[in-house]
């Protein structure tokens, strides 16, 4: 096994997902299969190879500093599940003890 249920639980927490016990088991099995398959990456010699995050050799793509009109507030809030007084509203945010 490359990955345990506990590992998957931790990853679920980081991803803000929750699973039932049986879902967790199924997921663990499926993820394990993919990670086992990914073992093939260890057969490659990558010494001296640079990682490639971008395929195009672009650099310094920037824009001039000028203010442009913003979105009208009604449009910005149009998709909000809950709003109040022009704010987006969310459940309480716990912070510390």
């Amino acid at each position: 096994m490359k990955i345990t249920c506990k590992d998957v639980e931790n990853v679920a927490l980081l991803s803000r997902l929750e699973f039932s016990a049986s879902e967790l088991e199924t997921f663990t099995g499926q993820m394990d299969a993919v990670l086992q398959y990914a073992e093939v990456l260890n057969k490659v010699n990558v010494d001296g190879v640079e990682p490639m995050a971008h395929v195009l050799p672009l650099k310094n793509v920037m824009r001039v500093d000028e203010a442009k009109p913003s979105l009208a507030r009604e449009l910005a809030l149009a998709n909000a599940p809950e709003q109040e007084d022009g704010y987006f509203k969310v459940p309480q945010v716990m912070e510390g003890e």
Partner: protein
Amino acid sequence: MDYEIVIGLEIHTELKTKSKIFCGCSTKFGSPQNTNVCPVCLGLPGVLPVLNEKVVEYAVRVGLALNCEILPFSKFDRKNYYYPDLPKNFQTTQYDLPICVNGHLDIEVDGKTKRIGITRIHMEEDAGKLVHSGATITSSDSALVDYNRTGVPLLEIVSEPDMSSAEEARAYLEKIKAILEYLDVSDCKMEEGSLRCDANISLRPQGTTKLGTKAEMKNLNSFRSVQRGIEYETARQEEVLEDGGKVVQETRTWDEGKGISLSMRTKEQANDYRYLPEPDLVPVIVDPEKVAEIRANLPELPEARKQRLMADYGLSTYDAAVITVSKAMADYLDESVACQADAKLVANWLMGEVSKHLNNDSITIGQCPVAPKQLAELIALIDKGTISNKIAKTVFEEMWTSRKDAEVIVKEKGLVQISDSSEIIAIVDGVIAANPQSVADFKAGKEKAIGFLVGQTMKQSKGKANPDMVNSLLRERLQGN
């Protein structure tokens, strides 16, 4: 056991660009909630960031002013964590290749110079604002989010853990603030959040080199908080260690009202930020020519300004240092001097009466109700002998509240100094006649008695008599009799 304190500061400053770092929304402070937003800074599905060139320019400016190496190749990364003020639940920042590294800043504390290392400076985006958040606010079981601030460009300046006292931390912060103001990259208003400071504090036994466990302190919203917060945390950690305990590596928040720090440890595990290179932005390559161009166009820094004030105006090191802490104050001095006032006198007034009134009213020199020209005129009146220094202070008070010019006030209140000898002699003679005991005391050798007589003369003249002339004419008349 004696401990030494090890402090590192992380300073975030909002850059005063016209638009946000990755979109064209305005960065203007204080707009109604959610009116400076667009699909990009809202993190809507499908949007992409485009870097604001001014942010790179300002980052290089700051890097050069802080003696950093400008990395020729730097890139952006995503820092992943969930929080409602972060629309995409990741922050676009710079992780392993920040734009500036290996700088330093020299500070002065108690007459001694100390070099504080600067590890790195990087560009990143600010998050939004939460209103009514926190479990401690019992009335609300919800929070309101304003995304105006998301995407405002930030520079994060990270120091080496080179500071050993709250005073040093404060001096460092003050100097950084001054430099940022002089570079004109930020308005550095801690009260508006455009300058923020987090402190990493740890203790180690005196004389050792191994770093102790550090605690990170947040919510240090003013210079005072920084100093008090560090002092409190130092004492707290010392107590923990003295009791045989271990300092926990955690984030703590400073409560200025109560004067204590509280742990922000959440029940969830520590964040794993899972950094990855930002695929939607391409690398930033600052070539040597560009760096040279920015260096050549750097605005005058506080140290250079201080030297210039000493050379041009003959100000003392101390005075020049105090005046140049704030660019706005140094500018005020220059403007006042341009109106023909003597620089040293202006400096004295700025460090004295002006600062006193600014502090009393909790405002900055930018909001001073007395303009540089007006101060120059007041000083001119003293210089000409129209009013005495003492009367000038009264006039200044009036200028502060009424915003009227000095001359107008002097006329309205009839405060012109009496410098006519015959007028003063008349009053002096009257005082001598009315106070024979004091006269006798003086003649008997009690020098102090003359103070009383001078006081009486000033009183008779309603403070308007020229004090020097009163002194000399009084002695003359006393001699005469």
